[in-house]
């Protein structure tokens, strides 16, 4: 296991070189620069523009800017936002809990509905249940997120009035948020109704963001279960007289978990990507919205730092998934020896 982990960690070195380079180049190949974009129609004179570009160091050759950037990164300095003047790390950790909270609940929703739906569809293969569940999941998978999110708002908030329209909590509450997780902070605040307001605000964005992963989980669980259910050991289990529930959940599901866990791991990237749209529509103050705003403003340090930090999260999750493989199926980590 340790050598397995060590090898995976070693791969991170070239991965990070690639990420920093991509992050650095990506934002610079987009036309426009922070000074021009920030000033819009009210641009400074050419002399002043040159002075500002120099002051920010944007007139240096790209390789010099890159090495300066990597040098600072190695010292843990992600730089300051050109727009707000605040350290990138400070802004990231202020907003990151909101994204985690949203993604976690979206994932929870997706797992809660998607996996049982997939299992039921597999067990009831070819029946009305199977066709209905798979049609719903295909619809969920195909739905454009922005359209689905607006539909949810119009129906549940506008028409039925059951849920608030957007934000993390009613704008009338204002308390310290030491953890950044609104559910926890609203609970700790002891403000009457704050926790309920936070829960109500979380429902629609979590459902909107969780819909595509839910559909993926349902389809993946179904196919993984179907494959496993056809295996000899399942027939043996059935022949031994085990109950259908035990055969399905204990024997078949455990063995179907590997592809399911893979999809769950990969869905973290999808959730973070989907968070960009969800956060924008639901005015959810997370890193997705922060990154989009920063790309539009050509806020180089924020885009670079944000990409690296998000990539780190995706890498860590995938590393965890790899470790989980070893636990679910010990043959995988042993193959490494």
């Amino acid at each position: 296991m340790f050598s397995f982990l060590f090898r995976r960690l070693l791969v991170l070195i070239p991965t990070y070189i690639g990420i920093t380079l991509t992050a650095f180049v990506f934002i610079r190949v987009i036309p426009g620069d922070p000074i021009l974009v920030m000033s819009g129609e009210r641009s400074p004179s050419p002399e002043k523009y040159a002075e500002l570009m120099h002051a920010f160091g944007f007139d240096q050759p790209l390789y010099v800017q890159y090495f300066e950037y990597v040098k600072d990164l190695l010292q843990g300095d992600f730089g300051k936002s050109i727009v707000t003047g605040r350290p990138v790390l400070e802004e990231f950790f202020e907003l990151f809990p909101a994204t985690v909270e949203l993604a976690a609940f979206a994932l929870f929703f997706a797992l809660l509905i998607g996996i049982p739906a997939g299992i039921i569809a597999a067990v009831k293969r070819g029946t009305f249940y199977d066709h209905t569940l798979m049609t719903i999941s295909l619809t969920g998978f195909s739905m454009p997120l922005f359209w689905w999110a607006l539909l949810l708002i119009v129906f549940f908030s506008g028409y039925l009035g059951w849920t608030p329209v957007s934000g993390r909590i009613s704008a009338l509450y204002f308390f310290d948020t030491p953890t950044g997780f609104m559910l926890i902070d609203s609970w700790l605040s002891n403000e009457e109704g704050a926790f309920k307001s936070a829960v109500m605000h979380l429902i629609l964005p979590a459902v909107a963001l969780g819909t595509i992963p839910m559909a993926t989980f349902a389809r993946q669980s179904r196919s993984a279960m179907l494959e496993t259910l056809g295996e000899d050991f399942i027939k043996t289990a059935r022949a031994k007289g085990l109950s259908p529930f035990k055969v399905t959940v204990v024997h078949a599901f455990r063995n179907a978990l590997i592809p399911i866990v893979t999809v769950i791991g990969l869905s973290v990237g999808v959730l973070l990507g989907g968070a960009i749209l969800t956060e924008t529509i639901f005015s959810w103050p997370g890193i997705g919205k922060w990154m989009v705003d920063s790309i539009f403003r050509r806020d180089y340090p924020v885009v670079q730092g944000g990409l690296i930090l998000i990539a780190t999260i995706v890498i860590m999750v995938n590393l965890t998934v790899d470790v989980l493989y070893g636990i679910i199926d010990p043959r995988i980590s042993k193959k490494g020896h």
Partner: protein
Amino acid sequence: MKKSIIAAAVLAGGMIMSGQAMAAKTLVYCSEGSPEGFDAALYTSGTTFDASANTMFDGLVNFKVGTTEVVPGLAESWDVSVDGLELTFKLRPGVKFHTTKNFTPTRDMNADDIIFSFNRQMDKEDPYYKENNGNFGYWNAMDMSNLINDVVKVDDLTVKFMLDHPEAPIVSNMAMAFASIQSAEYGAQLVASGKLGDLNQKPVGTGPFQFVGYKKDSVIRYAKNTQYWGEQAKIDNLVFSITTDASVRFQKMKAGECHAMPYPNPADIADIRNTDGINMMQQEGLNVGYLAYNTEKDKFKDVRVRKALNYAINKDAIKQVVFNGEASVAKNPIPPTIWSYDESTVDDAYDVEKAKALLKEAGISGFKTNIWAMPVQRPYNPDAKKMAELIQADWAKIGVDAEIVTFEWGEYLKRSKAGEHDTVLLGWTGDNGDPDNFLRVLLGCAAAKSGDNRARWCNAEFEQELQDALLSTDPEVRTTAYENAQKIFKKEAPWATIAHSTVFMPISDKVSGYKIDPLGGHFFHNVDLK
């Protein structure tokens, strides 16, 4: 646990606010975006000004809300020397800066604060200049360093601006957001603690509201400044609930989650008008959308060609298709809400035959050109691509084959400033209600050199009128000069003036006293809640 819950007024039914104490009046404004910071001098966006200058700060002079009239602010009176080179302000005594968690003022506002507020934008040795790399948006764009030579303290309550040359709009400029007055005492405290960035993050002003807190990209909270020098705000708390999607803002208004919202989605306007409990306020915007002809290019040097292209454009169709009918066709380069607007101008009305005849007279049967269309929505042009397509179709009728070109926004501005275009769609929203802010900034000879004048048109006669108006403080002289300038503009046609868009502001019927600001700001200190 430390907390500062804000009691709230009861909003329309459906608001989620379970169990709050509702004694105080809280107005929730669903703002369109996050402020970049709270130091207005660093930025150029209206979103940032609303969250900073328009709520928490004062200038030496202010614009009277709902008008472009300059009224006393932190200065009680002002005086311009005969040669126009000295501008003296008499400051208002007894003005208090906000007391916040980070700062307790020990003195009233005085001349040191004025000097601090301007020096940091012009003195390269000032620590705040260095902290921000000299990136003061409006100061740089307006080239203020070449206008203001020095700011001098005469006594505690008198301050004098020494100017390089006379410039009539200087007093109006002092009411703009970049000229908001900061506390020198707070500034010095932050320098001592090495936290210069807090001037932008934890603002301290003299305005009608003071800063309570900001949850990034989510909510900004203000409380009434109970020591305000002017008439105190009628509401106790002001909340900016940041909601970037226009349709979602409307849903929040409908659900009673906010009292007011800016910039509705054009497609929602009819719906908003039919929604109970929401009043749709509207006013002609202080803006102009235009198509500039690059007069340095051979094909646009002949005024007859420019005029022909103007006659070929069906502006009424553009108004209907691009603006959903919610705009007025522009005939002058300044909007009708600005003083000196020339009512007598006769527009180049849509006339294909006249356009063809003019081209023939110029000896041209048709030519190839391009129309640059902005990639972004702007207040003066909600859909530049569609506008370009309509113009392209119109010009095709007179044998002009136009290709539509677009670039990313920053690149678009940069390249058009460099004069790479044949014709370019752009526009402008006024900053200070002075015609100079349109005519000289967009059509003057200096702007032709710097590129801000996208027509790259420098006309001696026109320039003389602008200079006459610039150097005079007599309103009559200035009005006549600007009217003459508009006549020359119309005759020479460096632009096709397209439209002045309408500004909308959906507002709850529980709100009274709100006035639409012609300059595009959003002000709440005169607003009350039923």
